[in-house]
């Protein structure tokens, strides 16, 4: 059972000794959760490696259907958002609430830009009949490699699962931003902002691997 008490102005659950104890435990929990995220994407990466070894030319052909410029812009957008996310945490830690709110808002905006670009990439492909696996429109696409649908199976699964995480991340950042506006964070208590930040950085990191693997592989 958990009843909270105030220790040095921080809400500490009764089963923790003090705020540091609680902070360390929470942070370990967040990192463990990140491990599971990486392992989940790991399954996709392993699949990618296996099939890339089997059909390297299929991946090369598939990459030519992607617009690397849009992918590159998205990479820049996400790297920039990682910076603003880190700034958001920093401003919380130094009690600059308004700057923190601004940094978090910019991060959400970057996430939105990423998703909008992704949306146009997806719809453009649907328009050209580029669907994953057996749904690939062979008459419209006329692929050289017989298994090109498999490449797009990977493309949609990897970028789709990543996109889903970006959306979740945007939701989480909105949540901590609202908490920040309400003034819940200060130099002594900023665990949720940092936790969401770690999540956001991991999502960025995964994209940094996805971009060359999917767009530049040719």
């Amino acid at each position, binding site marked *: 059972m958990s009843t909270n008490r105030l220790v040095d102005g921080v809400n500490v659950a009764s089963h923790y000794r003090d705020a540091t104890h609680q902070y360390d435990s929470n942070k*370990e929990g967040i990192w463990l959760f990140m491990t599971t995220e990486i392992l989940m994407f790991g399954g996709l990466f392993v699949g990618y490696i296996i*099939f890339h070894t089997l059909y390297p030319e299929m991946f090369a052909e598939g990459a030519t259907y992607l617009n690397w410029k849009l992918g590159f812009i998205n990479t820049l957008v996400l790297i920039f958002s990682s910076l603003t996310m880190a700034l958001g945490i920093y401003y919380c830690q130094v009690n600059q609430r308004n700057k923190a709110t601004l940094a978090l808002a910019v991060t959400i905006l970057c996430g939105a830009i990423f998703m909008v670009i992704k949306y146009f990439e997806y719809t453009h492909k649907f328009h050209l009949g580029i669907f994953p696996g057996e*749904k690939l429109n062979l008459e419209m696409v006329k692929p050289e490699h*017989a298994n090109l649908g*498999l490449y797009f199976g990977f493309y949609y699964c990897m970028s789709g699962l990543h996109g889903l995480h970006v959306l979740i991340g945007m939701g989480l950042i909105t949540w901590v931003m609202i908490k920040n506006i309400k003034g819940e964070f200060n130099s002594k208590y900023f665990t949720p902002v940092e936790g969401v930040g770690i999540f956001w950085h991991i999502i960025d990191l995964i994209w940094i691997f996805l971009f060359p693997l999917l767009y530049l592989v040719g």
Partner: protein
Amino acid sequence: MGQHSSGKNYINEEPGLLSWFGTLDHKRIALLYFVTVMFFFLIGGIMALLLRLELFAPNVTQNVGQILKNGDVYNQVLTYHGAMMVFMVIIPGIPAILGNFFLPLQLGAKDVAFPRLNLLSWYVFMTGAALAICTFFSTKVDTGWTFYTPYSIRTNGAVVMMVLAAFIMGMSSILTGLNFIVTVHKLRAPGMTMFRIPLFVWAIYSTAILQVLATPVLAITLLLLAMERVFGIGIFDPKLGGDPVLFQHFFWFYSHPAVYIMILPAMGVISEIITTHAKKTIFGYTAIAFSSIGIALVSFFVWGHHMFVSGQSELAGIVFSFITMLVGVPTAIKMFNWLATLYKGSIQFTAPMLYALGFLFLFAIGGVTGIILAVTAVDVHFHDTYFVVAHFHYVMVGGTLMAIMGGFFHWFPKMFGKVYNELGAQLSWVFIFVGFNVTFFPQFILGAKGMPRRYFDYIPEYEQLNKISTIGSWLITIGFLIGLYTMIQALRKGAKAADNPWGSKTLEWQTSSPPIMHNFDHEPTVTAGPYEYK
């Protein structure tokens, strides 16, 4: 510490049925799991009885079963028996019930690290379980609990819904494991060093590592399977360049460690029971603790032994065969340490001890037949026969379920503050132990004779042994019913239990029975190891 003066405890402190569904107390959440998991065990058990009843005799007319309508229905019952017992009973069983209840108590903590997450895990688990049960009322799944492609892509059953259910229950398993790891790292009482934590905690801790590291791979595998079914992405479909065997690799990369998620906690329970009911310091504490971690690590590199006949390379087969045999080493270390603990101990043949001894006996058979199956040449013959069925039931039922029952009786006085009827508990053990051997030992012989698993019919030569096996399943049922009756009677009429009826040294026995809401009146300070008997 003695009796809490006010007579308040975790059961009666917050009144009303509704308070249970919003509780953040680890002991109450353990009881939520207790009730739900036992319910699923009942359903999964009924499925098992139906399967055995169907196999009582060979079919008279082709494609018409004894009691199940036809082979399709048999496949469905088989699938739900397997999926429910694995995902809804044995995986959550010991960690979520006994682990939730006793991990914080044994560490001297007030709760797990994340109480809110703990309650969320139960709701997530229930959501997954509800979804799995929903499939039963839409088109029933008939893939077996392993969802092997390509059949799982082609069949009409509600595979996507079932797979999502397993995904969601996996998420619950991850969250529970994560919670326990942080609890063990951060919430030990003063003086409770890592080498003073009880062996049950070591076992749950090793299990938690597996839950956190292996389950995400199941998650992505099941997602890919769902995508394959809905969009035909091709990764498991040879027609599109994909590979159905890859599914097996992915699946067993999780599901083999999952086997240890099922057995490691049981080993922890056995360590507690044996040392307490023999009143003797555990032999080789460090060896048992490290062998838990050892089993957890090795378990990640043995998945290929499920696939000796799936067309993996010979070299891979040999490597997986040897690593699989390696699992026998830490397991044997545990076995011999338990036996050495019993040596010259003051063994009391209480019900928990009987269950523990039953575990040693059955698990030894289950383990050694596992080594037999790890030999590739033998496995080619035994693969997909009843020998394999008997082997893993000896491990999971003979091992884990014996440990669950032993653990329930061992900790019953602490959990509910009531004394159970020793005779009833021992009688349940007699029926379960004898019934188990009558059910599953003949299956080794059937398997060696070549009877394939998963079929709903067989040739007349196998009839006699199948009859014996089915009769055994009734004995097991009687055993569990006696056990259930004993527990219900104890809850209704049992005398008040003492705080430490077994004279145990671990921390959970140093507080009142049942424990107070915050576990301990004062935070305990630990100055010695957990099993300083003699």
